[in-house]
């Protein structure tokens, strides 16, 4: 089947979903009111609360929510075949992500632009805000662990990407000095920086960097050595002022995202590649079953709980008219779905003949450990359709993912620092409050331990467990989404509206998440992965807690639709 056809089918599905389902949500479920005075108007201050045109807001919302995670999940999930992966991306985007992102904006806008953490305490229960804090703690731990591993895998398998990935750092530091210290425009330097980065790709190809010698000297595997180096870098990066590295690198990331999306879709159009993966793959024995694992493997790209943080933290405060929440929230979710589609195409049509695909996805270990490599090689193939050598194209794709992952880790460690401090305050552990170096070290060591312990990439015959780490990440992401959907559902019920649009994806996600967590418990126990077992058990408790909180809140509102969720 031509890959182009998948693009057409997906975009047609998204078009009709936007036209009909999002209109149903807007008119019958959220009942958007064009006369409602949004917080952007009511509290208009030109700082946080600014009435903003829907096109401006969609641009900001989309560039904020899109990232590397919608690439990794689908790149693993095509192991079960392109059909299940694509079906979940399309249906998840339409019926779960769209409802979630759209609803998060509406509920927040109806509550003075309050963020989802505050709303969980207000709408669901006081305990739910603690639950939110704990879910985010686990989510960030897993985010940092998986992205550390992602970068290590890419550095190990694409040593040509090391120089271009490293050169981003001095470029970003220069841009930071130029823009923030000298007060200059950032556009030309960031475009020049991007060009310099692209020039560095063939240089990196010519001079690949290996750490084998270092690894041998310290007695570790290459991947473990990379993981440790990456976390050491992250510690330093997260201690720098944001304007030195994090913020200027953002500009390069934004440009890279646009370039990557354009070249992938253009490569598919020009190359007219066919899908080499089977529609439904006959997986190797002892592989995780697609039901329920598919639904937690593809988290971002089908539904991502973190979007509720952007939707309620920034977007809702800038909503000019309540009716525009549909365009921004639902439209942004569809954009994220398109990014996941690009990853599916790269891993199913970009890997060459069916034989190559079968080798790349021989078993779940190869599928998950090599997922990024498959995406990178597939994108390289699409670039070869545009006349760029495939090896250069592959390095380009590796650099895109590495820079995104680097930014994610830098931000993730900072956020974890805030969360750890908040938890210490709540727990009365004064010795941690304000201790930036100690908190940063903790924020780095916890995911580092997680990234290393299940590693065992060459030991014990267990095989690299990235897939299992990734599915744990997926469960926490789905729990965050579940919490936001609970808030939306309770809010709807409190207004005597049909909550099914939020309730069905909530129950579905909770069911799939808890089921997968239970299966994982058995798997981790059997394999003796004690750290993952403890982590899994803790997340299971959070899932059960969320189910209880959601059920109690729904029951309360069903019996007594109340002021508990009344807008201020």
């Amino acid at each position, binding site marked *: 089947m031509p890959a182009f056809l998948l693009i057409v089918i997906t975009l047609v599905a998204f078009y009709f979903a936007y036209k009909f389902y999002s209109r149903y949500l807007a008119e019958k479920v959220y009942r958007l009111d064009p006369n409602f005075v949004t917080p952007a108007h009511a509290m208009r201050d030109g700082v946080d609360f600014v009435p903003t045109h829907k096109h401006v807001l969609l641009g900001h919302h989309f560039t904020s929510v899109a990232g590397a995670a919608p690439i990794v999940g689908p790149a693993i999930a095509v192991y079960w075949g392109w059909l299940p992966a694509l079906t979940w991306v399309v249906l998840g985007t339409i019926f779960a992500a769209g409802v979630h992102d759209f609803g998060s904006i509406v509920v927040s806008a109806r509550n003075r632009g309050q963020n989802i953490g505050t709303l969980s305490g207000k709408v669901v229960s006081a305990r739910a805000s603690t639950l939110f804090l704990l879910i985010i703690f686990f989510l960030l731990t897993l985010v940092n662990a998986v992205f550390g591993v992602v970068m290590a895998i890419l550095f190990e398998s694409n040593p040509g990407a090391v120089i271009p990935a490293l050169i981003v750092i001095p470029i970003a530091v220069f841009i930071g000095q130029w823009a923030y210290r000298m007060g200059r425009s*950032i556009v030309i330097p960031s475009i020049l920086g991007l060009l310099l980065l692209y020039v560095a790709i063939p240089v990196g190809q010519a001079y690949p960097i290996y750490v084998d010698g270092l690894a041998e000297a310290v007695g570790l595997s290459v991947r473990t050595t990379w993981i440790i180096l990456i976390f050491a870098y992250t510690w330093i990066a997260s201690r720098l*002022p944001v304007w030195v590295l994090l913020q200027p690198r953002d500009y390069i990331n934004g*440009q890279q995202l646009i370039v990557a999306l354009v070249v992938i879709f253009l490569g598919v159009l020009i190359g007219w590649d066919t899908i080499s993966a089977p529609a439904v793959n006959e997986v190797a024995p002892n592989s995780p079953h697609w039901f329920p694992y598919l639904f937690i493997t593809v988290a971002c790209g089908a539904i991502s709980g973190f979007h509720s943080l952007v939707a309620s933290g920034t977007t809702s405060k800038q909503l000019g008219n309540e009716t525009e929440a549909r365009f921004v929230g639902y439209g942004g979710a569809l954009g994220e779905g398109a990014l996941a589609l690009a990853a599916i195409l790269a891993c199913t049509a970009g890997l060459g003949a069916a034989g190559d695909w079968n080798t790349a996805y021989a078993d779940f270990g190869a599928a998950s450990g090599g997922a990024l490599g498959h995406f990178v090689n597939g994108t390289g193939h699409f670039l070869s359709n545009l006349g760029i050598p495939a090896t250069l194209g592959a390095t380009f794709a590796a650099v895109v993912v590495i820079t995104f992952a680097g930014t994610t880790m830098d931000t993730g460690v900072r956020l974890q620092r805030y969360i750890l401090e908040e938890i210490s305050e709540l727990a009365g552990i004064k010795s941690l409050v304000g201790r930036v170096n100690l908190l940063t070290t903790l924020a780095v060591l916890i995911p580092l331990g997680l990234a290393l312990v299940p590693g065992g990439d060459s030991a014990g015959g267990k095989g690299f467990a990235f897939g299992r780490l990734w599915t744990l990440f997926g469960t926490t992401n789905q729990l965050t989404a579940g919490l936001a959907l609970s808030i939306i559902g309770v809010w709807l019920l409190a207004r005597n509206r049909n909550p099914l649009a939020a309730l069905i994806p909530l129950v579905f996600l909770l069911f799939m998440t808890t089921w997968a967590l239970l299966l994982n418990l058995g798997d981790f126990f059997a394999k003796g992965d004690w750290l993952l077992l403890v982590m899994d058990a803790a997340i299971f408790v959070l899932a059960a807690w969320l189910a209880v909180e959601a059920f109690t809140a729904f029951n309360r509102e069903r019996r007594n639709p109340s002021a508990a969720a009344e807008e201020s």
Partner: protein
Amino acid sequence: MSSTSAVGPASRGQARGRRSHQVILVREQDAQHSGSGCCGRLGERHTALGAAADFSQSRARMEQIGEIYRALAQAAPDLELVIADPRNLIWLYPAVWRAARANGSTAFSACRAMARAGAPVAVVVDGKTLYSGRLPSAQVVVDRVLAWTARPLNA
């Protein structure tokens, strides 16, 4: 949240869709990153080391632009006032290009305006970037913008 008070509803000119002078105030949103789907704004409670500390400089620029925004909204309610993030590639740069070309700028000038608009702070009026990178006092900016927008639109 800003400590400043609200300034009332957005301009009527905007609401009616009438063509008016467009002022784009460019500034970065604090604690928000491009491609941050997995690690964006957290909206945590305020702690000593929280986002407020990390992003204090961005916050200062947001407050500075906020002051200009409020003064312009008060002085010229018919202006089309937009606040945009310089990382909003999808909207900002095409918008500056369109406005510049619509107001008679050459392609070169429009490109220059786009390049200058992408700064931690910038002020763009009808496709002309008046300030980029650093701003003088709010009053100076407001006076210059008002002087510029006192002129009739090109088309």
